[in-house]
């Protein structure tokens, strides 16, 4: 039994019958990390000792006959934006280098309570701003399909860890596409749950009205298992929705789209889209139709303004949220030599502690919010947000889910867009509308682009709190593709050798 090749669902079943121990499963993944992470660089911190201690605890509890949650003993990698007690949390930034938060994020706590084994903290674009992990202060992660390509971002370390079999599951956050885009370019499954469906307490804030934690897995069912484990109302997050968790695991098991109405968003295609992405997407739509779905075309005319609206709203919120990094109570402090006042020390610390993209966005946000420009930029972007929500409302009046490519292109070479912000921002063209509307969306692999042999993601979008529909459609597509391909897509990934 090759433990690192097993899905979380398979591991869960083997653990439940004591076929394997949590200690064996954890050690196998730590060994895999030791073998490949010098090439992938998915992790910023590997928590071997605490992972093995957690595993021993799970094994001991199971031995006493205690009924454990489905993920008990299953390893998970956690994006370095979630606070973790007794473990560093850097957000990929020098300004938090060495910071050990005094409390656990709600999602960290729920993972621990479920008995999931936290392997460590994964690399990310600094403060979740980016689409490639190249904005990490600690160097980029690499795509397991081709080590010279980006793994996507900002949750690129989490996606790369799962695609490289370093972890069966990982947690990320999605603000403009930071789960779905890396999932798509690494050939795995990633979900942005409904905004408010998963708690932001202890998630270091980037853009609070958009930030949404969610799962990565190699299969749709695995993502659903993790989705269910982390979701649900949290009184510690005032934007958390007090409603039952949608039945995502049941939907992933049913995997039935017969009679479902699926809308193809015509506005998410055309110029700027790679031909190999569009042809795989078209095949996926045909496949869903052949499974009994009713497919129609739907227009969302304001989606073309989603990217510009996002790059006003997200930086505005970022400029406010990141004001907390003031060198006074925690984190880096630079230039405090007894002669400088607090404001000089703040400015020197933020200059030394933040990378180029974070500085760009803070300044952009300060501009969009400044008196005289507020109405023309931030105010207008908020109105566009309303129009995008209305587009979705109209579309969901006609269909049950919407589909599009998850990204306009496959993984691009490291370095290609690193200093070209507008080109980098285009990577999130298809994913941003769902963030602005706060609804739910998933990316599921739908094949390899003919021109470069790299994975393509199919995006499915559903109304808020109808997250189960994502899993129903994605699981149906996954099963049908598996029949066609004869093996999981990820079996073709050769970046780390056969």
């Amino acid at each position, binding site marked *: 039994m090759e433990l690192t090749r097993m899905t979380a669902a398979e591991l869960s079943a083997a653990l439940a019958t004591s076929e394997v121990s949590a200690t064996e499963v954890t050690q196998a993944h730590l060994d895999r990390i030791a073998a490949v992470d010098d090439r992938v660089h998915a992790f910023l911190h590997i928590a071997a000792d605490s992972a093995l201690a957690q595993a021993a605890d799970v094994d001991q509890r199971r031995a006493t006959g205690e009924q454990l949650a489905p993920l008990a003993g299953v390893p998970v990698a956690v994006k370095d934006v979630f606070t973790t007690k007794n473990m560093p949390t850097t957000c990929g930034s020098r300004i938090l280098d060495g910071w050990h938060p005094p409390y656990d994020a709600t999602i960290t706590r729920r993972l621990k309570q479920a008995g999931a084994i936290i392997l460590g903290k994964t690399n990310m674009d600094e403060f979740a701003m980016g689409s490639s992990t190249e904005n990490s202060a600690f160097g980029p992660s690499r795509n397991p399909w081709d080590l010279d390509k980006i793994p996507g971002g900002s949750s690129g370390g989490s996606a790369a860890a799962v695609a490289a079999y370093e972890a069966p599951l990982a947690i990320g956050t999605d603000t403009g596409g930071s789960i779905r885009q890396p999932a798509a370019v690494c050939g795995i499954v990633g979900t942005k749950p409904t905004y408010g469906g998963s708690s932001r307490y202890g998630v270091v804030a980037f853009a609070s009205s958009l930030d949404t934690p969610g799962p990565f897995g190699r299969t749709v069912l695995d993502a659903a298992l993790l989705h269910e484990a982390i979701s649900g109302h949290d009184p510690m997050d005032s934007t958390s929705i007090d409603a039952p968790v949608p039945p995502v695991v049941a939907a992933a098991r049913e995997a039935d789209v017969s009679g479902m109405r699926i809308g193809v968003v015509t506005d998410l295609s055309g110029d700027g889209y790679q031909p190999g992405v569009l042809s795989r997407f078209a095949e996926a739509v045909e496949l869903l139709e052949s499974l009994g779905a009713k497919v129609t075309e739907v227009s969302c005319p304001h989606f073309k303004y989603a990217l510009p609206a996002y790059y006003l709203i997200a930086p505005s919120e970022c400029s406010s949220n990141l004001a907390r990094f003031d060198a006074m109570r925690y984190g880096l402090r630079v230039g405090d030599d007894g002669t400088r006042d607090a404001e000089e020390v703040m400015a020197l610390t933020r200059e030394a502690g933040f990378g180029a993209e974070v500085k760009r966005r803070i300044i952009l946000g300060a501009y969009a919010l400044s008196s005289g420009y507020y109405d023309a930029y931030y105010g207008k972007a908020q109105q566009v*947000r309303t129009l995008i929500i209305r587009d979705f409302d109209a579309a969901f009046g006609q269909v049950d889910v919407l589909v599009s490519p998850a990204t306009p292109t496959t993984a691009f070479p490291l370095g290609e867009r690193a200093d070209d912000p507008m080109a980098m921002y285009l990577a999130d063209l298809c994913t941003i509308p769902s963030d602005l509307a706060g609804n739910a969306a998933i990316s599921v692999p739908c094949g390899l682009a003919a021109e470069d042999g790299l994975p393509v993601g199919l995006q499915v979008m559903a109304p808020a709190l109808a997250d189960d529909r994502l899993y129903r459609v994605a699981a149906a597509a996954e099963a049908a593709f598996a029949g066609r391909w004869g093996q999981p897509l990820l079996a073709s990934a050769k970046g780390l050798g056969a």
Partner: protein
Amino acid sequence: MPITRDEVAHLARLSRIALSDAELDHLAPQLDQIITAVAQVQEVAAEGIPPTSHATGLTNVFRADEPVPCLTPEEALAQAPAVERQRFKVPRILGED
């Protein structure tokens, strides 16, 4: 040119970021390009369209005001850059005069 180098320098000062001249030279044209692109939102006729600040529609979320355990002073100060007599020690905030 929607944003000048001087405006970027001013915004950086307001944002408490001590940008170097070289960074200003690099950032100012990039920000100009970004602002030109995002200004597309102004093309949308949005007369009478209400703004959306967040998507859940939740307003005024309350909870019972009950004391719960919180961080000890030691925990709260453990990550501070400088501490004195169980307080955060910070650089001076007022001038000499």
